[in-house]
């Protein structure tokens, strides 16, 4: 492989690793690194392998760019998607970062569930609502109307006489709570992310896929425990 091929090889790995970044940013980064590689070889008279080894692996370089740009985007944005993405990256750096990601997952998950349940009320008006009875407070979905028998949502008891109290107001209330959860989670996680120093993913969780799988397992266990408790009652 000649020098030019080695440079192009490095740059194409870098381009792949930078995937997802805005195209102009990506092009500018690649141009700058191309100049660096060419001039380092010319000026120092070093081999292309030496110059590349001084620069570090393309994937690591891309990871540093991504994290630096992500911090900047977080500082400017209120987009839950960017914030969530930031929390996912932070989850890979420390146990505290992972806790922050779980908070984001629960906060956004609850917000999304509330907003979805507001929509579901339009299609299943007898099953979705706020059910109140002796020892019962359930905001969400339940199996039967009339006598309350289990359900999904904020559950305090699973069986007994209960009645739905909100009617069509449920849509407005669930929407408001959903938006409040999304807004609150965004504010909280954004604050946390801005204060956290950027660093490379640590040994806690290397891959974003592993992070996603582990957190899904955590939530699955929590949900199963909740369901088992409901059935036991």
């Amino acid at each position: 492989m000649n020098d030019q091929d080695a440079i192009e090889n490095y740059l194409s790995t870098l381009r792949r690793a930078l995937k997802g970044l805005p195209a102009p940013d990506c092009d500018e980064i690649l141009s700058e690194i191309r100049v660096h590689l060419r001039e380092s070889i010319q000026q120092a008279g070093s081999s292309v392998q030496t110059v590349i080894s001084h620069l570090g692996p393309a994937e690591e370089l891309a990871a540093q760019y991504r994290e630096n740009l992500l911090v900047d985007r977080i500082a400017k944005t209120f987009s839950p998607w960017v914030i969530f993405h930031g929390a996912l990256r932070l989850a890979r750096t420390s146990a505290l970062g992972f806790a922050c990601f779980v908070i984001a997952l629960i906060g956004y998950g609850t917000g999304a569930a509330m907003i979805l349940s507001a929509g579901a009320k339009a299609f299943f008006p007898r099953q979705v609502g706020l059910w109140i009875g002796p020892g019962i407070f359930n905001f969400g979905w339940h199996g039967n109307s009339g006598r309350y028998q289990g359900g999904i949502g904020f559950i305090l008891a699973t069986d007994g006489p209960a009645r739905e109290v909100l009617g069509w107001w449920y849509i407005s209330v669930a929407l408001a709570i959903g938006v409040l959860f999304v807004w609150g989670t965004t504010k909280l996680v954004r604050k946390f992310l801005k204060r956290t120093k950027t660093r490379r993913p640590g040994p806690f969780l290397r891959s974003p896929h592993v992070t996603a799988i582990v957190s899904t397992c955590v939530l699955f266990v929590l949900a199963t425990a909740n369901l088992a408790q409901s059935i036991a009652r």
Partner: protein
Amino acid sequence: MLLLNKPSPVETNVNSTDRWEAQLRKGALEMAALTALWGRRLYGLEIIRFLEQRSQLVLSEGTIYPILNRLKAEGLLTSEWVEAEAGHPRKYYSLTQSGRQRARQMAETWLEFSAGLGRLIEPVLEKRGIKK
């Protein structure tokens, strides 16, 4: 039987010191990059060479470019592509007004910090015979 090469306490100590030193260098690199551009404009490789000559901060050349990119995104640096004699354009960086302000603040903070820390570590250095 599974045999694990457990690091000795001395090895662990050396690794922790290396990690700490790497973090220290990385933390100071942002200030160093701003300082390198004080009163002049330089392109990436010039900044790296400048820092290599005057400090031992640059461990991996790859760390400097993402930092420059972020400082630019924060509005502390500005950049322009200038056609060079080498036959291709180079990306030159210079400080913005807020970049100059930040560099000055960082330099003052660093001075106070290092003076305080210098006094603190005096007994440790004296014990090892490394007196000023």
